[in-house]
């Protein structure tokens, strides 16, 4: 049994936690794994192929119950825990984060510890993403419009982007508001685009950059580019990194009197 499995099994058998959420090998790639008994932990794995952001499960009371829970965490999951805590969706100390430092299992129980670890392990945009982003930005506006409308035309409104996003935890999403009907519920280029604009705007300053939305999309719309582009804009305009669990307010719920305003006349 791996050290990770041993640690998870121990936490469960000691009763420290009632649930360990981790990853196991699935039928095609890795997948989330829920361990409620020590023996469930035997198949846990944690490596760079673990791409689902399992931090999203932490906000589902039907899965979590009221006790403590442990989660085996990639950096993206750690950022998620930090951001969710800042947004009052998790209580600091109620989530134990298990991470790997080489072969060793790290157990982090406080947000400060996780933040420290994250600060020591910065993640930059992949070269592929950087290239795609600059390619799109180099296009003319009309070309970008055509590119995105083609993408939006593919969308079937399955909301896998929403369901896979750990920060889309609203009980009622704006698309389910019908008084007024902000966004038409059917799949159509305009309503698909409006949905994405809303989804992305709602991620402003919050997105942890895990890319779950993008990977979940069954019709392969490159959704990550939207949030990456926005996070870049935010960083440039306000000097704020997104998804870092700022407790003093989100980028859109705070301001500086001397924020840039070169587009306002």
């Amino acid at each position, binding site marked *: 049994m791996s050290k990770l499995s041993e640690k998870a099994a121990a936490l469960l058998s000691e009763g420290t936690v009632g649930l360990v959420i981790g990853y196991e090998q699935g039928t095609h790639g890795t997948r989330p794994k829920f361990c409620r008994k020590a023996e469930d932990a035997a198949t846990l794995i944690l490596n760079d192929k673990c791409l689902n952001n399992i931090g999203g499960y932490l906000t589902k009371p039907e899965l979590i119950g009221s006790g403590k829970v442990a989660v085996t965490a990639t950096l993206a999951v750690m950022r998620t825990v930090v951001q969710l805590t800042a947004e009052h969706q998790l209580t600091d100390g109620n989530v134990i984060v298990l991470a790997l430092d080489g072969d060793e299992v790290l157990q982090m129980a406080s947000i400060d510890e996780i933040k420290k670890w994250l600060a020591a392990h910065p993640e930059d945009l992949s070269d592929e993403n950087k290239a795609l982003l600059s390619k799109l930005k180099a296009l003319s506006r009309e070309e*970008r419009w055509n590119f995105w409308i083609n993408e939006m035309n593919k969308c079937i409104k399955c909301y896998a982007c929403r369901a896979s996003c750990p920060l889309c935890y609203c009980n009622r999403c704006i698309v389910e508001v019908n008084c007024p009907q902000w966004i038409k519920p059917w799949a159509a280029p305009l309503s698909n685009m409006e949905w994405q604009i809303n989804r992305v705007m709602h991620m402003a300053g919050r997105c942890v950059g895990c890319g779950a939305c993008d990977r979940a999309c069954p019709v392969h719309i490159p959704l990550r580019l939207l949030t990456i*582009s926005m996070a870049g804009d935010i960083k440039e305009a306000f000097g704020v990194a997104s998804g870092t669990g700022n407790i003093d307010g989100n980028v859109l719920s705070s301001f500086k009197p001397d924020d840039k305003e070169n587009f306002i006349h």
Partner: protein
Amino acid sequence: MSETNQEFEPRIVAFVCNWCTYAGADLAGTSRLKYATNVKIVRFPCTGRIDFMLLLKAFEEGADGIIVSGCHPNDCHYTSGNFHARRRWTVFRGLLDFMGIDVRRIHFTWVSAAEGAKWADIVNETVADIRALGPYDEYKSIASNFEKEAAK
């Protein structure tokens, strides 16, 4: 799209705050300044209240251009609504531009209660700019369709 069409009368909606720009537009009226009829004003308590979705809805309903206007920084009746709005517009504008929506059609401006003349100028400038850009057919073409129109 860039050809100038003198016949084209753009449809423009202005989203303004009650305390500065709405009052500034009132002042333009009491000063009997003349400006184009194309702009229709929607009154909000504060720029902080202006939901970005309302801008998209205006385009969906056929607006060719939009004005968003409120109190100058530090003049907000509610002290910071315009600061919040400014951040919102910064992020929103960047996203729209990235998605290829024509942000030249959205004019952001600060007009105080004393700037009646500025309001009249803003309206006339916006109407001229949008007239030069032409109708926003690109957006309207997707407004009621379930599928993107087949490429021609």
